C-alpha cells in the first residue's frame, strides 16, 4: 500500500530503513516525523470507488488526484464490484473517461444500461443519500444513458438528453476554456467562484449535448432554472462561446460542457479535470520556467473531497 505524499514518502522511508508495516505500527505513530505528517495532512477513512471496465482510461489519473487530496481511491472492475464489493461502503463514486466496451451501439450505452440493470438500485440509494457521483467524459455519457442525468422529472420520456457526434465530425482533443455557471447547487464546484473561467482539456468524438427536440426549450429552461448547468464552453475572456467553433468544440446546445442532477450531487462533464490536476500537466508551463503546483482540475476534486466528509 502506498501512502501519501506518494513517491516522496516512500523514498524517505526506504532511506531510513522503515518498512511500510513499521510506519503503521504503534511505536512509530508517536515519532515526531509521523506526528508532523499527521498534522499536515490527516489521513481519512474516506473511500472513493472508481469503476473500470474494458476501454476505460484515466482511471489511474483520477486515483492519483484523489490520493493527492488524502482520500483512499480504489479502481474496481464493475464485475468485481458486483461480485465482491458493496457500493455503499464508499463515500463517493467516479465513472472515468474512455471508450467503455468500445463505444459499441453508442458511446456509453452498454455500460450505462449495465449499470442501470445490475447496479441501479444500489446506485439510486447512493445518490438519494446525497453522496457524490462524478462522470467524466465517457462517464458523463454513461450517466446519461443510465438515466441519472439530467434527471428532470418527466414520466413520459425514458431519456431526456443525449451526447452525440461532434458537429465537426472529428475527435476533438485539446484544451478548452470553461465558464463556471453554477449558482451554488453543485457539490463539485463548491469552492469555485461563480463565473470563474477554468482551463481543462477535452478528448471526445461524441460530446454534443442535445435535448429531446420536441421539448428542447422546456428542458433547457428547466435546467437553467434548477441551477443544473455547471460548465459552459467559453472564450478565454469568459464570454460564452455561443456555439462558435472552436471555443465550443462539439456544437453542444447552450455551450453545455457539464450538468448536474436536480440535487447537485451527480455531475457529468465532458472535459477531463484529472488531466489538469497537477501544474506539470498544463500545456504551457515551460514558458514560465517552473510549473505551478496545481492546475484548475484540482478545484473540482477538492470540492468533491470536501463534500465526502459528510458521509
Amino acid at each position, binding site marked *: 500500500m502506498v501512502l501519501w505524499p506518494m513517491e516522496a514518502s516512500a523514498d524517505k522511508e526506504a532511506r531510513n530503513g522503515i518498512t511500510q508495516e513499521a510506519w503503521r505500527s504503534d511505536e512509530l505513530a508517536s515519532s515526531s516525523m509521523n506526528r508532523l505528517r499527521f498534522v499536515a495532512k490527516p489521513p481519512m477513512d474516506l473511500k472513493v470507488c472508481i469503476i473500470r471496465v474494458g476501454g476505460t482510461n484515466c482511471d489511474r489519473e483520477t486515483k492519483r488526484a484523489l490520493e493527492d487530496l488524502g482520500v483512499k481511491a480504489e479502481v474496481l472492475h464493475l464485475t468485481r464490484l458486483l461480485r465482491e464489493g458493496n457500493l455503499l461502503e464508499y463515500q463517493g463514486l467516479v465513472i472515468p473517461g474512455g471508450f467503455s466496451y468500445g463505444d459499441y*451501439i*453508442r458511446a456509453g*450505452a452498454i455500460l450505462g*444500461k449495465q449499470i442501470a440493470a445490475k447496479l441501479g438500485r444500489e446506485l439510486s440509494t447512493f445518490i438519494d443519500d446525497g453522496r457524490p457521483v462524478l462522470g467524466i467524459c465517457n462517464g458523463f455519457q454513461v450517466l446519461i*444513458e443510465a438515466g441519472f442525468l439530467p434527471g428532470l422529472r418527466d414520466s413520459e*420520456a*425514458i*431519456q*431526456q*438528453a*443525449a451526447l*452525440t*457526434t*461532434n*458537429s*465537426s*465530425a472529428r475527435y476533438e482533443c485539446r484544451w478548452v476554456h470553461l465558464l463556471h455557471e453554477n449558482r451554488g447547487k453543485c457539490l463539485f464546484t463548491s469552492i469555485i467562484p461563480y463565473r470563474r473561467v477554468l482551463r481543462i482539456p477535452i478528448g471526445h468524438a461524441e460530446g454534443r449535448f*442535445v*435535448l*429531446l*427536440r420536441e421539448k428542447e426549450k422546456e428542458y433547457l429552461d428547466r435546467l437553467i432554472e434548477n441551477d443544473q448547468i455547471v460548465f459552459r464552453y467559453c472564450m478565454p475572456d469568459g464570454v460564452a462561446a455561443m456555439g462558435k467553433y472552436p471555443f465550443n468544440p462539439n*456544437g453542444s446546445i447552450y455551450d453545455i460542457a457539464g450538468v448536474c442532477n436536480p440535487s447537485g450531487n451527480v455531475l457529468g462533464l465532458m472535459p477531463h479535470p484529472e488531466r489538469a490536476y497537477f501544474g506539470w500537466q498544463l500545456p504551457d508551463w515551460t514558458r514560465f520556467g517552473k510549473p505551478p503546483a496545481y492546475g484548475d482540475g484540482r478545484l473540482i476534486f477538492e470540492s468533491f473531497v470536501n463534500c465526502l466528509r459528510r458521509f
Partner: protein
Amino acid sequence: MVFRVTVFVNLKEGYSDPEGEATEKSLRDLGYDGIHDVRVGKIYRMVLEAPSRKEAEAIMDQVCRRFLANPVKDDYRFVLEEEWKAP
C-alpha cells in the same frame, strides 16, 4: 416462433448528422454530384424466439427504445421475418 429480425437505427430528422455530411462531401470529391442528404445509421441483425408475432414486435419495440436507439435523437424501424421450419 423464430424470427429473423433486422433493426435500422438512424438519427432523427432535424438533428444534424456530421458523419452523413462528411460522407456527402467525400462523395462529391469522387465526382458524384447528384447525391444529397446523406444520413448514416446502423443495422442490427438478430434471431428472436417469441410465442407470437405480436409479442415479438412488442419485445423488439422495447429493445429498440431501451437500448439500440436513444429516443432523444434516434429513429428506429425493424423488420421481422418468420423463419421457416420443417414440419
